[in-house]
């Protein structure tokens, strides 16, 4: 048996935008075991629920992550609305869906750029982020923010967007499709990219099920699991079906996200065409006194939002379980048996967000 060596990977590493540490136990150049360690940026955001009244807490929860901030705000509101028994107007649900899907496009483009950067394709990285910038502009036009939006509130949304503006955004997104196609074709067709992704880090359907993986990681292995199927938002009205691949390798995880890019544009177009007239919020009375477990499909996968109230203005507990949290066991599994040189790419294929994970 070859000598075993332990190589520390992270918390500071060129491929990692945020700190995660892995102890890689290797034999020659093959990883035989990976032991994760997090906790470098634990901020205790959930604990702030004791000092912030529940209508204000949405601003804290949005700051769990700078990429899927809208989704976190929606998830929190959904949980508190469930707790209070509030029904949100349909126009607000449509607006939430549009912003959430814009967030998915921006997150996936960011991820594609980071992946390209991880395997050393710098121009591909720059093109991905150039396109992402256009989506951030759309956020700015409709919410006033590029990272933190503060448009979601318990009971609806704070800002309306005119039907003309929505049609304009939809047209602009459709105008981006040729460029997106050109960009994503490089990920799918280019030989140097294929060499780095195809057949690397394979997880079978049984393995992702056993490891309780979520989001694109699960869907790339043939598991058609997606929280958007549960009937919240406007997804049922828009006719949503999850994007699934079967190969379970890094390329499949990349393809799922690419498919979701185009699917999100389609969903936004449908929503912009069919958004109903009406109020964007309802008046919320009383304080939460029960408990509610809500879920969202963030760009990275399923997230949980558990709220427990005690009848006062302060919730007893808000719990956010983010997708990276659930995908760390899958990462540990996919690293076993891989080449040391593939570790950075494999870590990225779960689209890790450590700020989310540690909150």
């Amino acid at each position, binding site marked *: 048996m070859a000598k*075993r060596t*332990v190589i520390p990977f992270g918390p500071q590493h060129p491929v990692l935008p945020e700190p995660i540490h892995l102890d890689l136990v290797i034999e020659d150049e093959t990883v035989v075991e990976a032991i994760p*360690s997090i906790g470098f940026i634990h901020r205790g955001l959930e604990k702030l629920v004791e000092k912030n009244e529940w209508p204000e807490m949405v601003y804290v929860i949005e700051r769990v992550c700078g990429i899927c901030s809208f989704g976190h705000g929606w998830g929190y509101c959904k949980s508190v609305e469930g707790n209070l028994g509030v029904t949100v107007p349909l126009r607000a649900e449509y607006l939430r869906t549009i912003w959430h899907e814009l967030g998915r496009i921006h997150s996936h483009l960011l991820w594609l750029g980071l992946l390209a950067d991880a395997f050393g394709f710098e121009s591909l990285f720059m093109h991905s982020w150039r396109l992402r910038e256009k989506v951030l502009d759309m956020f700015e036009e409709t919410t006033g923010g590029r990272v933190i939006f503060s448009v979601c509130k318990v009971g609806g949304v704070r800002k309306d967007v005119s039907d003309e503006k929505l049609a304009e955004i939809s047209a602009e997104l459709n105008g981006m499709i040729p460029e997106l196609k050109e960009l994503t074709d490089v990920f799918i067709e280019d030989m140097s990219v294929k060499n780095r992704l195809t057949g690397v880090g394979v997880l079978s359907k049984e393995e992702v099920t056993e490891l309780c993986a979520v989001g694109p990681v699960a869907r790339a292995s043939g598991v058609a699991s997606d929280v958007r199927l549960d*009937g919240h938002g406007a997804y049922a009205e828009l006719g949503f079906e999850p994007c699934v691949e079967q190969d379970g390798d890094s390329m499949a995880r990349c393809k799922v996200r690419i498919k979701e890019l185009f699917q999100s544009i389609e969903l936004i177009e449908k929503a912009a065409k069919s958004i109903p007239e009406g109020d964007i919020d309802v008046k919320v009375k009383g304080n939460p006194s029960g408990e509610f477990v809500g879920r969202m499909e963030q760009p990275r996968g399923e997230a*949980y939002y*558990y709220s427990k109230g005690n009848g006062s203005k302060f919730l007893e507990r808000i719990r956010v379980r983010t997708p990276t949290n659930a995908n*760390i066991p899958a990462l540990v599994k996919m690293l076993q048996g891989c080449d040391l040189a593939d570790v950075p790419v494999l870590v990225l294929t779960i689209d890790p967000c450590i700020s989310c994970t540690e909150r």
Partner: protein
Amino acid sequence: MAERKDLIQDIQPVEASELLGAVADAKTAGYRLGQACATKVDGGIEVLYSLEKDEVLKNLKVSLGDNDPELQSISGIYWAAFIYENEMHDLFGITFKNLALDFGGHFFKIASETPWNPVNKRSGAADSAADGGGEVASSVAGEGDGGDGDGREKIVNLEKNDKETPAKADEKGGEE
């Protein structure tokens, strides 16, 4: 309007002694572990396990006392639970017995012990020692004794012996 499956809230109280059986039954029935979390309530802690099947959730709630809360780990059934259980251990001081991957109180790098449940201050290293992960955990807990990569050597040794609990070691080990 489509059926809102997300509004179905099934939260079942479960005795600590019945937890493993209930979780095993859920797994057999095709449920996936979604999350587990703890909540500090008056006079104790509630632990909530959320399981999902076909977009519908089943939640199992276990109530524990404030003094030395202890629970059987479900990581033998759902291995992925080690993430949640280590987090609950570090933040709330709940001891999980037979944890599949025990970080010995060093999952989060926090400045104070059990910060979300100050009533129950305890030493993470001591817990792990009691659970059989003591060798690695004690090397982790010892201030300034990890500078030579000693902890990592122990990880490798543990990995060779699969029967032992693999544990996270060395947060101060530095580069080798």
